[in-house]
């Protein structure tokens, strides 16, 4: 049964938990993360969806297929024979001026790899939820961030979600960000496999009309189907061409994305009561040390951080929401003056004790500060390994020791590893 039927019949929930209690235009439902994403896709109502099943993303494709079968969306769905063709068809459909979505996980994302660069290089605003799952080998279906981190230099905007609500919210905002004329880049919405995708949570679904108005229409700057202005897309650019300039323009678009993501997050706050920026800070203003984390782990860590703060411990937290573009300047400003930071990474770079990707980039971001905090890295949760309260407490203990002693015992640490 399609989730939409359940949602359409559900009761409007008067009680709001967002930070703006005056807004009452949504209904709260208990759904899994994949249904939160397909519900966002139903409301976006894209012209074309091209997708291929892969655990744990499959449930999105299934429920969206049912929406198409029930005639609840205008979408034409291409049930391709591979993720490679999913992204290829998405590229073709987007170049033809339609609003296009796809979704994937893990090996599927890896299989799309060359096309990710083509989608961004052709400046096609494709939106793709990626349900984060470990990459083989050994084959493992559970959560880590190695799949999307492998695409971090592919020219896609990447936005992490902490829970099902954020997966829904981010998917809606992604359309606006991708299609902004100053951006025109594809956007990946990231949600943790199983932890978010398959857990039932309370999710507020905004009224259809309000979402439609927020998302708006897609006005492509070029289209293969504009018969008055035929275009050649994906042409050959050789040694004496403009390749370098194209690439620099992609970087310019990424720079523009900082402002657009914040603007869209603010506007989304006005319709939902949930405001979004590049990252979320907890008590960073008066903290002496802080944790930086992303994805579902941020929820568990926030719980501990707030508990410690209530006991007078000067700890703060930053939940990184936007990983591409990487908000280096803003993070450095927020962390300036702190004694120590601990960065949680759900993937490794295998670079020879350099740490995880977020750590490497955050540490680089802090380099120009007059007073740099000490930096510790915790690689955790690979292949779905559980991040327990005890493990986070262990890391927090080491962070506090580093801040007090002024020394880091070990820079890169593997949290929860059986040794």
């Amino acid at each position, binding site marked *: 049964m399609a989730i939409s039927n359940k949602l359409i019949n559900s009761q409007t929930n008067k009680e709001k938990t967002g930070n703006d209690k005056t807004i009452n235009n949504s209904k709260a439902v208990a759904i899994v993360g994949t249904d939160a994403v397909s519900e966002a896709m139903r409301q976006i109502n894209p012209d074309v969806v091209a997708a291929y099943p892969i655990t744990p993303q499959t449930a999105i494709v299934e429920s969206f297929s049912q929406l198409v079968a029930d005639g609840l969306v205008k979408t*034409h769905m291409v049930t391709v*024979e591979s993720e490679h*063709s999913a992204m290829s068809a998405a590229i073709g459909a987007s170049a*033809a001026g339609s609003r296009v979505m796809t979704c994937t996980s893990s090996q599927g994302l890896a299989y799309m790899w*060359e096309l990710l660069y083509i989608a961004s290089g052709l400046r096609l605003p494709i939106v793709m939820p990626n349900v984060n799952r470990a990459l083989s080998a050994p084959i493992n279906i559970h959560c880590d961030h190695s799949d999307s981190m492998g695409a971090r230099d592919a020219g896609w905007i990447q936005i992490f979600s902490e829970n099902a609500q954020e997966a829904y919210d981010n998917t809606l905002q992604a359309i606006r960000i991708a299609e902004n004329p100053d951006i025109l880049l594809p956007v990946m919405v990231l949600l943790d496999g199983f932890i978010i995708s398959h857990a039932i949570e309370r999710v507020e679904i905004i009224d259809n009309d309000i979402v439609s108005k927020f998302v708006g229409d897609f006005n492509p700057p070029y289209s293969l189907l504009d018969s008055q202005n035929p275009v050649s*897309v*994906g042409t050959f650019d050789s040694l004496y061409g403009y390749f370098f300039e194209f690439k620099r323009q992609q970087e310019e678009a990424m720079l523009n994305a900082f402002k657009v993501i914040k603007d869209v997050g603010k506007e989304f706050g006005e319709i939902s009561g949930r405001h979004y920026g590049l990252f979320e800070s907890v008590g960073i203003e008066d903290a002496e040390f802080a944790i930086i984390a992303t994805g579902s782990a941020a929820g568990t860590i926030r719980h501990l951080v707030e508990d410690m703060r209530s006991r007078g411990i000067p700890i703060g937290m930053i939940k990184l929401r936007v990983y591409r573009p990487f908000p280096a300047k803003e993070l450095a400003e927020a962390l300036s003056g702190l004694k120590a930071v601990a960065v949680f990474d759900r993937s490794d770079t295998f670079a020879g004790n350099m740490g995880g990707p977020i750590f490497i980039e955050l540490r680089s971001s802090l380099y120009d500060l007059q007073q740099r905090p000490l930096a510790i890295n915790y690689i955790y949760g690979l292949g779905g390994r559980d991040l327990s309260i005890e493990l986070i407490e262990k890391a927090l203990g080491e962070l506090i020791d580093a801040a007090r002693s002024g020394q880091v015992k070990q820079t890169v640490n593997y949290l929860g590893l059986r040794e």
Partner: protein
Amino acid sequence: MTANLTKQKTSTKLKDLVKKPQILTGGHRLCAGCGAPIAVRQMLLGVPDNVKLVVANPTGCLEVSTTIYPYTSWNTSYIHCAFENAAATLSGVETAYKSLKEQGKIKEDYRFIAFGGDGGTYDIGLQSLSGALERGHRLIYVCYNNEAYMNTGIQRSGATPMGSWTTTSPHGNSSSGKKENRKDLTAIAAAHNIPYVAQASISHWKDLVRKAQKAFAADGPVFINVLSPCHRGWRFPMENTVEIARLAVQSCAWPLFEVENGKWKLTTKVPKKIPVGEYLKHQGRFAHLFKEENKDVLALLQENVDAEWEKLLQLCGEAE
């Protein structure tokens, strides 16, 4: 899906065809004597009047030589994405068209055609092609088949005939060229039970244009495999391209047929079949086969051509 494509009222008279608009315009950088643009131009003579066209290319000679930024030789909308995915990319374009047309956002009638070399079609693009054919998109996929990877410098592909020299199937003391037979991609496409599949040659332009007209009339996927010799890779003088293609047909190394709604039909009969050696001897890629030590390979090639021809005659109901 079972419309009778034969009864479409279209002309193959030269006086009508010369009035057709030039969709692939001059000034491109393909080699003089290249078979590919001949195949493209003959196919595009089949475009019905008053329809718009989107052309797709996988990566290959045709793509790199006709779209050198900021120039384009395509007097219509065109997309190149990657090497192995022209069919999937074009299936996305076609789906966007259906969606936007249904919403009333597009008024014109569009057709969609991909031109891929044999590397991008027989080998790396086969999965993408098969998926698009199976899904039933209304698109035409044309393989301009020059029987090797020519854009990268003449490497063997799944379309390369047995015995052929290429840079990755060279002949030497312990090799007489490519060891394996080529795969029968036209039959593979026909096995998808799509409305129209055909094999054609640039040497038989009238046959090709008629097939193009049927292709554009078909309400579903179409696959056409066009022999398009490459004088650089096949090693013959550039002015002989069309003549070499004709010898391929006359020797039955490249028979011309169609499969229309499942019915196999020989479109060009070969009353006087010439020995395959008469076709091969003009090409440097087969020169080593005419040495004494390789006469077995040449004989085997003839055997294979004969066997495939007999099989085709049976499929077409022409067997004696």
